[in-house]
């Protein structure tokens, strides 16, 4: 087990290096930060001085090596746009994104799994058909459109919920939370639905397909033959065995929720990391972009690791397989 974790962490290093190399190489195409920092009036001498200051006159490999060297020490430099330390900026924005991702994930699980079980059990009921049609909407409508529709209905027409921002937040140490104020909770609702809708429908369809598969298997028939109540058969035996693929997908999707909250955050002006990233792209703020991409890579690698560990907990076959391999 311990060896397994170590090997996965070692595998992660080349992944992270590759991600940072690719992202670093892409920055050559996002534009020239110098042009933006100088503004409308400058001289050639000022321009050259700034290029030197930022180290942009160095060859690519030197710049990259310097970036990796600093990143290992947790140094990501100063944001060109905001003149503030990148690590501090990301730490400041992370709570907003994580709270939003958490709500979206809880929402999609809490609604998606029961809906999936229901539609798997009662395939032909009108409610199942409604859920399936509804899930098509969730899968096919782009996120920004869902967000804008929700804003139009709940903020502009009904005036129930705020159209942007996080509401009032409470500072607990370095963590700023929106869970403790009424306006903060209200502000979470629309973005969470927008961000979670796709995952919700995905989970629902996955659980439904897996349930239908499992319900056909022999051990369910035996369980029924033993006279076990439906509840035990459905949830104790069937649902548990659908969970391996569900955990994989949910895990990876959680990474996706954090990483791709960009669109939702932009629509709702949610002050998280995704919005920070988009604003940085607009002005070629390379330190922020590279740090963000690296962080997202770390998030994915970590989630993958956790998912692998969860398999152990859920699927006894894996444990036995490993055990045999050891003998």
């Amino acid at each position, binding site marked *: 087990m311990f060896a397994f974790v170590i090997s996965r962490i070692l595998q992660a290093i080349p992944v992270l290096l590759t991600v940072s190399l690719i992202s670093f190489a892409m920055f050559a195409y996002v*534009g020239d*930060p110098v042009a933006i920092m*100088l503004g409308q009036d400058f*001289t050639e001498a*000022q321009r050259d001085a700034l290029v030197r200051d930022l180290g942009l006159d160095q060859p690519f490999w030197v710049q990259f090596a310097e970036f990796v060297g600093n990143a290992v020490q947790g140094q990501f430099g*100063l944001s060109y746009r905001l003149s503030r330390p990148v690590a501090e900026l990301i730490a400041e924005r992370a709570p907003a994104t994580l709270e939003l991702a958490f709500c979206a994930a809880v929402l999609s699980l809490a609604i998606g799994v029961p809906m999936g079980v229901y539609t798997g059990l009662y395939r032909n009921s009108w409610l199942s058909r409604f859920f399936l049609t509804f899930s098509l909407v969730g899968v096919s409508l782009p996120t920004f459109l869902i967000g804008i529709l929700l804003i139009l209905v709940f903020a502009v027409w009904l005036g129930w919920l705020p159209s942007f921002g996080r509401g009032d937040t409470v500072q607990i140490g370095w963590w700023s939370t929106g869970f403790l104020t009424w306006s903060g909770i209200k502000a979470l609702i629309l973005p969470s639905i927008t961000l979670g809708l796709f995952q919700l429908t995905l989970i629902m369809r996955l659980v439904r397909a897996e349930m239908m598969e499992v319900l056909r298997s022999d051990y369910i028939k035996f369980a029924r033959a033993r006279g076990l109540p439906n509840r035990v058969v459905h949830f104790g035996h069937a649902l548990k065995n659908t969970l391996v693929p569900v955990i994989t997908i949910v895990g990876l999707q959680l990474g996706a929720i954090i990483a791709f909250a960009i669109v939702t955050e932009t629509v*709702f*002006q949610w002050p998280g990391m995704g919005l920070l990233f988009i604003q940085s792209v607009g002005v070629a703020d390379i330190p922020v972009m590279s740090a963000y991409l690296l962080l997202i890579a770390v998030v994915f690698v970590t989630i993958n690791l956790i998912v692998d560990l969860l398999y152990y907990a859920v699927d006894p076959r894996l444990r036995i397989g490993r055990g045999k391999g050891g003998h």
Partner: protein
Amino acid sequence: MRKLLMAAALAMGLCAGWAAEAQTVRWSASGDPNTMDPHSQNVGTVTMVLQQIYDTLIARNQDLGLAPGLATRWEQVEPTRWRFWLRDGVTFHEGQAFAAEDVVFSVTRAQQPTSNYAIYVDTIDRAVQVEPLVVDVITTVADPILPNKIASLMIMSRSWSEAHNATRPQNTRAREEMFTTRNANGTGAFRLQTREPDVRTVLVRNRDWWGWREPASREANIQEIIYRPISSDATRVAALLSGEVDFVLDPPLQDLNRLRAAPNIKVTEGPEVRTIFLAMDVYRDELLYSDVRGRNPFKDLRVRQALYQAIDIQAIHRTVMRGQSVVTGTFFPPQVNGYSQEEDVRLPYDQARARQLLAEAGYPNGFEVTLDCPNNRYINDEQICQAVAAMWTRVGVRTRLNAMPLAPFFAKIQRDDTSVYLLGWGVPTLDALYSFQSLLRSRDGGQGNGIWNYGRYSNARMDELIGIMVNQSGAPRDAAIREALRIYREDIPHIPLHHQMIPWAMRANFTIPHMANNQPYFRWARMN
């Protein structure tokens, strides 16, 4: 009697509560200021907040004319020496008394190489204190428009800046954040209370501000300004419609009709001091992005004229800009000193003439060219370029459109890596020299000369006239500007399109004078 008193007290309490709330203006625009440092970033999103906090020696009135600010009067005592008499009894928000040393300090600070405000102090040699409330600004050449430039120079407290180790505007080499990135201490009408970058900036009224006694500010009643950026257009409009925001500085054009129709919302509009034009590479012997080999068609005046006359500017005005533009034949608007109505005449739209001119120039079958265009910098920039490309293609100049976000766009044109491009130009000094010098003067390495002249236009007579604008005043200077404008019209270094119009959208109970520099001045605003 007691009942009556209680009722009155209650009513007063209610009124006071209501009034205090009503005098908070919640304001939004797409971008957030990058910094609170007044000499670091010379861009509209920064100054729109900082000019509420910091005063300048010379202020602007509602027509953008010059008015007394921290200086009550000023005079050119010698050709290279301007004298400023400072206002007495002014204090900074944190209590420091304002005096001549603060002015000397601020001028020096803006002159630092890391300042983005060098254009306003480019002719200044140094500032010296004459008396505690009298300052002389000594220039390297006689500078007739120094007051126009000084009007953009915000004054900081010397002791405050020194105490917080902020005597330089910005230091990219430093690994640490500057104190002034998130803190401000001015003498202005509003004081910075909260600064959360990209989230919220709160300003509160400075009751001691000298300007509240001025006639223009007597009716002003804003107690608190809450600025929250919203980058998504649709969300910003929704926030205004739902009443979460009182004032939107940059409503998207496509939503204007909807906003006008909405109850409790009004849209005010006026021209902005920003002109949109197309500039061509008139320097290279062969264009980088064209199929013409061995020669550069843009060097031929007839080709430039043909492209000019191929543009149906009224169609762009009507359909692309939805009426929100002022069509022009020159490259700065009437608010700018030096503007001349007679020189603001367009060549008529005439496709047949354009084809004929192309044939005369030796391109009867036209040619191919790529138009570089930003897609997120000016109002409807990409759509303007699409229209122009179609119009040029119609007369035979097959135009490929290369539209991109501002970051790669400016990087590309600043390498002179373009054959023809669209640019919008604002004039912060409100004097013609700024536009001539940056856009049309030959690039000879002199400070500011031709730094935005990416077509590398060069005309000896033009350079000579710009030289006169730099160091002469009065009639000879006016004559030079006039002649230069005529050359602009006849030699076609650019194809001018229009001045941008800027709409502001707000709730009906909020009033603020519309300003051509696209800057809201809350010192003149009122919430009913």
